[in-house]
């Protein structure tokens, strides 16, 4: 079915804001609270979109560009992932590098916007975010390498699509190690516990939240949406590793992916409620451990 890739993309784009809501709801339930409604983020996005925007006189065009580029790159990256398990809307050889590069570009622009404000809080958040990204990127690439070696292909569509399904049984341990590593990377990229606590209100303990402190109105809406979309993208990467084992048709695979995303969000919620945030200087350790795990999965494939 040729419309399933586009359908999948639209579905994920629409569903993305629900994921943080599900995670927060699970976390609240596990800690004995009622928690915010699951679709709260939609309401927040609508509210922010309708509000007016305030720009500090110290900022330049970079500050206005940051959120826009962030969302555009996230949307483009979403097009690279085979959400229905067979094809992705955009595909070319080596698009895994483009995937990582696009997300990195978005982060880079957001960091520039943060530095543009000239405020020390944003600068602190930006430096922390980039430091963690430095450790998360190798882990991400090691995971991708595991998939590349497992399937022998260099396109995300093939790495996470049908060819993966064919080799799934033979390479299961490495794939699972890669998926575990990817899960930790997704926690880092979406700034959730144990790397960053989205619920903290103390600026000195924030990483991502403080970086976007100065944005307001539609800009803030774009940033919130991009965050949710990143969570959906990394979540779909993790879920694809598991779902690929089931050799099903495209619509079924899409359905499984959406269900898997909900499960992923719930898993994030569980992790958030079980663990505390790590000390800042221990976060690189965790990410290096994720790299080592993925590296070990790679070694198992290469022997």
């Amino acid at each position, binding site marked *: 079915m040729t419309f399933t890739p586009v359908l999948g993309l639209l579905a994920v784009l629409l569903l993305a804001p629900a994921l943080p809501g599900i995670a927060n709801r699970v976390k609240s339930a596990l800690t004995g609270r009622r928690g915010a409604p699951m679709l709260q983020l939609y309401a927040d996005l609508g509210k922010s979109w309708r509000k007016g925007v305030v720009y500090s006189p110290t900022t330049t065009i970079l500050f206005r560009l940051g959120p826009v580029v962030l969302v555009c790159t996230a949307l483009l990256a979403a097009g690279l992932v085979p959400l229905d398990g067979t094809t992705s809307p955009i595909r070319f050889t080596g698009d895994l590098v483009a995937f990582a590069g696009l997300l990195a570009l978005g982060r880079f622009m957001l960091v520039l916007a943060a530095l543009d404000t000239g405020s020390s809080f944003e600068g602190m958040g930006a430096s922390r975010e980039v430091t963690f990204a430095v450790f998360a990127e190798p882990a991400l690439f090691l995971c991708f390498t595991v998939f590349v070696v497992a399937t022998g292909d260099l396109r995300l569509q093939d790495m996470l699509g049908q060819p993966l399904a064919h080799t799934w*049984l033979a390479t*299961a*341990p490495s794939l699972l*190690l890669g998926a575990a590593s990817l899960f930790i990377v997704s926690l880092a990229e979406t700034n959730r516990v144990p790397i960053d606590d989205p619920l903290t209100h103390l600026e000195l303990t924030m990483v991502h939240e403080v970086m976007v402190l100065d944005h307001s109105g539609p800009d803030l809406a774009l940033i919130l949406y991009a965050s949710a979309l990143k969570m959906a993208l990394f979540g779909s990467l993790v879920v694809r590793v598991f779902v690929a084992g089931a050799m099903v048709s495209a619509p079924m695979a899409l359905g499984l992916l959406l269900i898997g995303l909900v499960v992923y969000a719930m898993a994030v919620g569980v992790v958030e409620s079980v663990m505390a945030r790590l000390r800042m200087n*221990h976060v*690189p*350790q*965790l990410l*290096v*451990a994720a*790299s*080592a*795990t993925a*590296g*070990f999965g790679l*070694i*198992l494939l*290469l*022997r």
Partner: protein
Amino acid sequence: MQPSHDVLLLLVVLTNFWVLGTTRLSSMIRAAAMQGLLLAALPIALYPHASLHIVGLAIGTLLVKAIVLPHFLTRAIREAAVRREIEPLIGFTASLILGAAAVALAFAIAPRLELPGTPSGMLIPVALSTVIIGLLVLTTRNKALTQVVGYLILENGIYVFGLSQAERVPFLVEVGVLLDVFAGVFIMGIVVFHINREFDSLDSARLTELRD
């Protein structure tokens, strides 16, 4: 589906990473206990025609490495005021990277060692990497208890290597080795307890009075 012994060996490597990366002493002991549990299941997974020797070895390993020794080590440090490892000689991040490199190295050189046929292709590399990681923990860490855990991991690695030579090394010998490990760690635990009492710290860098 992967054979069960390969999965067990995989998990052994993951517990090694766990020990390399953690800073809490109690977490380290838990990792060692988990490794003991995996090692107890390994002989049965490798030689399913469960003879009395194999079952005895598995039970013995379970008792010693997964239950008695971790419990004993936990008690040995229960009076310790500081329960965390301070930054080791080469840093935690570097330790993890070195550990991963050790695993890669072990997998690379194991086929070239031309060791005679073993039940699983992963036994020798995992054994070698565990030995290297055990030595790494033993030599680069500051706390006496971490050094004991490093020794335990070193012995675990040698135990796995011994399992690959099982037809040549009678199980009686493996039991003897197990007993020796038990006694060794037991005595070390006692000494750690005394170190903690005497120096009010588990920092082995304090043990520098004797020198020429």
